[in-house]
């Protein structure tokens, strides 16, 4: 009894504060649940709305036809092909350059002020609005390098846009590789290049691939810079990547969403479903690649 007395005194002294902390904790938990519920609800409402509008228009004919002024005959084949062509070129350009830049920054560059400045600048570049890259692309690729308003110019512009994102993601992935990994390689007599190429890079690969594919999804969803550098809206033929006119999915969607007729809103929604599907495929690809590459990694 004597031993219990001080304990209960302690309880009563701390009880009010305990209640308050419990209430605060519950409130915070509630706020977190509410935040995620709000996000999910918004997403669900948007998706349901888009799918309901798109359902009557989504069919094979829509996927395999050129656009048309008559919504019933309209399709998005040129836009899908334009988007895929841009996606491929963007991937081919940004993957090697972005990863090489990240390897330099993490594995080779010394920790000097100039390199820190470089990294800060790359982070800032990732936050520059896409329309600015459009202006740059128009001046450099379309006009100065005389590529004209082509898929190639568009893809290079979008590559510049996502390069900072690819570099940052790759830098983070490389930094996440434990130092013991590098020291182990050196201990076995590896040169720096052998250490990077055979030990660090494979370990960082899942993170790098995720970053690259998510960045490509961003490039594929951009409309603003492409409008500036001369993408067309009504294109009935399949685009040639290095010459000639093109259109892409976001611009096709924008063009249709602008029209007054309800039917165009419907095909606009259908095109949104297609681009969503394309994004999902890309993200799924990122997941699969990640899973495959990290299968053999054990720290």
């Amino acid at each position, binding site marked *: 009894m004597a031993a219990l007395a001080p304990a209960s005194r302690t309880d009563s002294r701390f009880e009010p504060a305990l209640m308050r902390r419990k209430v605060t904790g519950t409130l915070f938990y509630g706020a977190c649940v509410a935040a995620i519920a709000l996000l999910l609800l918004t997403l669900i409402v948007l998706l349901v709305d888009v799918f309901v509008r798109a359902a009557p228009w989504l069919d094979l004919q829509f996927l*395999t*036809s*050129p656009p*048309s*002024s*008559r919504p019933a*005959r309209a*399709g998005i*084949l040129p836009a*899908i*092909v334009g988007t*895929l*062509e841009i*996606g*491929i070129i963007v*991937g*081919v350009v940004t*993957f090697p350059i972005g990863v090489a830049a990240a390897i330099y920054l993490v594995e080779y560059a010394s920790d000097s002020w100039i390199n820190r400045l470089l990294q800060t600048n790359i982070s800032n570049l990732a936050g520059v609005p896409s329309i600015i890259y459009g202006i740059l692309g128009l001046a450099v690729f379309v006009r100065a390098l005389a590529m004209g*308003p082509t898929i190639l110019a568009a893809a290079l512009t979008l590559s510049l846009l996502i390069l900072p994102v690819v570099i940052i993601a790759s830098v983070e992935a490389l930094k996440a590789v434990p130092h013991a990994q590098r020291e182990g390689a050196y201990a076995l007599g590896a040169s720096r290049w052998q250490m990077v*190429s*055979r*030990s660090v*890079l*494979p*370990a960082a*690969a899942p993170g790098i*691939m995720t970053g690259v*594919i998510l960045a490509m999804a961003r490039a594929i969803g951009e409309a603003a810079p492409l*409008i500036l550098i*001369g*993408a*067309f*809206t*009504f*294109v*009935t*033929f*399949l685009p040639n990547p290095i010459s*000639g*006119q093109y*259109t892409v999915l976001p611009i096709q969607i924008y*063009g249709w*969403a*602008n*029209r*007054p*007729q*309800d039917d165009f*809103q419907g095909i606009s929604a259908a095109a949104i479903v297609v681009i969503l599907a394309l994004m999902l495929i890309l993200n799924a*690809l990122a997941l699969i*690649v990640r899973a*495959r*590459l990290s299968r*053999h*990694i*054990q720290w």
Partner: protein
Amino acid sequence: MITTRPSRLAALALTATLAIAACGGGATPGPSSGPTSGTPTESMAPLSGTITIDGSSTVYPITELVAEEFQFANNNTVQVPVAFSGTGGGFKKFCTGETDINDASRPIKAEDEGEGLACETNGVEWVELQVAIDGLTVVVNPANDFAACLTVDQLAAIYGPDSAEHLLWSDIDPSFPAEEVQRYMPGADSGTFDYFTEEINGETDAATTHATQSEDDNTLVTGVAGDTYAIAFFGYAYYVENTDKLKAVEVDGGDGCVAPTDETINSNEYAPLSRPIFIYPDVGKARERPELKAFVDYYLANTNAFSTEVGYIAVPDDVLAAEVAEWEAAVGG
């Protein structure tokens, strides 16, 4: 412990790229399979080439339809991509020779560095061809039963540059309720905005800064449909498609109240907001490129059928006939 080798990484990246490439490569061009409307161009040798068109989003629906039918009539041997970066943006490209035709919802600005002067400097010769009439429509919410008719002065009081920030409907007319006017209007880059400000406010681009602006007219429709005291203006086609959500205001240009209808816009009775809309073909290029001349011929021959299909008003026959003659003379000479 790591067993993945770098070659695996490269191989995977390559596979991903090839997978996407395969999707793109497998696709084949879908032939247009539309009904044969309009008359196919009469020509012996099949035409070929690419005609690039940019400009006004107002003219875009007509040009898109003409482009589609023209390509179909020529078995898709001529490619006609169409874009809309706005009347002004389009003229900048047209006057540097980047595009062959510019869609315009207002006449070219002769003294503007990016437009008339640039065309002159670069030797781009053009003709102005009216292809339809649009009636800028002033709309209010269907629940608005007081503002059935507004004079040009009243519209200027609402949209003018000196208009108050918290303007009340009762400031426009004492018989109107003392509720704030919620103003909506198209973005400053559109020819619609240019035309309205010039006709109503007396100076191009002079307008209130207290209005919600959007480049997408459907946003304006939504805004007015959801607010009893809102007002907006945009192209007639957007009103025609939304008559259940909007009410058109009659406009008094000095000769009494006139509602925008097909007839009053066509006869120019709906003044001053009936406006002609144009295409500007590059005459120099048309002399050398038969497909460009054929396209403009086709446009003029069919514009009244196509423009009414997408919600615009036909050009009077005599105006059209005079234009065809002007076009023939310009290209022939």
